[in-house]
């Protein structure tokens, strides 16, 4: 069965390593913070100026001066730090962030990503996504495999305006886990009970399927 958004987040949490500094985008990526393995120290970066972002506050701990990049009230964990936007993107640009997880509308088999604009419809802006994808060494895209019309979001090339070029290394969708290399999507795991045929039929870009594709363990 295809994963729900919590399943996608759980699978991405398996990519975390102790001591990682991690930037989680809005949507499914934010859910990853709920599945940090016990005993692991993960410092979440929020690009508006937090390292060590904690969970949502209790009603009595709400502080209007403390929000995350999604403009939600949050807390900070012991050992956290505040800084300004220039420094925040300095640490992003200088490659200090170990893992970046973000959503996308389309990903191409060469690692291009489109996530910020649909021409002719409302343009909200790219926020920090272009800065993140241009500098992160380790980018995972978390998204549904197909769009609302049922069309593949894993494509030979993006049709929407790009956020960045050749930058995505891994994708976790509701159907499987894919590595991007040598101009193709390499299927490395499939969601529990999802057939290779289903993944093939819903992947428009070049898909490489090895002889054995294990089911995800989540």
């Amino acid at each position: 069965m295809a994963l729900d958004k919590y399943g996608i987040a759980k699978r991405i949490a398996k990519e975390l390593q102790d001591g990682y500094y991690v930037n989680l985008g809005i949507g499914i990526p934010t859910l990853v913070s709920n599945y940090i393995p016990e005993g692991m120290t993960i410092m979440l970066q929020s690009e508006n100026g937090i390292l060590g972002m904690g969970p949502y506050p209790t009603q009595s701990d709400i502080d209007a001066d403390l929000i995350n990049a999604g403009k939600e009230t949050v807390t900070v964990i012991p050992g956290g730090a505040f800084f300004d936007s220039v420094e925040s993107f300095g640490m992003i640009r200088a490659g200090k962030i170990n893992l970046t997880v973000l959503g996308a509308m389309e990903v191409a088999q060469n690692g291009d990503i489109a996530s910020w604009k649909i021409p002719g419809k409302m343009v909200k802006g790219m926020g920090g996504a272009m800065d993140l994808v241009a500098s992160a060494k380790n980018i995972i895209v978390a998204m549904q495999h197909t769009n609302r019309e049922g069309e593949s979001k894993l494509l030979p090339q993006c049709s929407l305006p790009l956020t960045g070029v050749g930058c995505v290394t891994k994708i976790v969708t509701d159907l499987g886990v894919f590595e991007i290399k040598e101009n193709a999507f390499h299927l490395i795991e499939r969601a529990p009970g999802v057939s290779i045929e289903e993944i093939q039929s819903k992947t428009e870009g070049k898909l490489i399927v090895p002889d054995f594709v294990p089911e995800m363990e989540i």
Partner: protein
Amino acid sequence: MNKVFKDALSAIFDIESGATLMLGGFGLNGIPENMISALVQKGPDRLTCISNNAGVDDFGIGLMLKTKQVKKMISSYVGENKEFEKQLLSQELEVDLVPQGTLATRIAMAGLGIPAFFTPAGYGTEVAEGKEIREFNGKMYLMEHALHADFSLVKAWKGDTLGNLVFRKTTRNFSVAMAKAGQITIAEVEELVPAGEIDPDDIHVPGIYVHRIFQGKDYEKRIEKVTVQL
């Protein structure tokens, strides 16, 4: 030297129509609430506003959009605002969308006296169109210019009579760099104290950058998305 003004309206006395303004804040977090209200009251129009976001319909820069005082926004993200969308589609409003890190750094460069810099953000996208592209150590970068403003309007937690500023939690955001980038920088603070009361070690923006300061009042500090643990 007297940098202290009595209120927002007196501190923005010379902001005229057509001015370029930087407004600190991220979403509604740490925005110069008092000066936005004063701008609405004073009424200059055809303003260019440099701010990461454009507020919401009835708060922040959204208030100045409603009164059609803004000609152009330079921002990284402008969702959450229907009035903005309406004016953009009817071409009453221009918008220049800039990647957030590029925007922050362009502002910072103005305060550092550096005219331009290279960043990889936006390479290969429409953001790079018409810009100088260069390769450094095998990676592609585009040239971005420092961003200046006639006036920078920032809100700090605490400030002293010499203009030294201290911020609280995530409200530093764009405000620290903007404070250093303005031709004239005006700060509103929740608490104005005599010079010497703030420990020099704690100062985020030294007073040299701040030309005017006033004690703000009636802070609403609206929260865009109240999220709590269940």
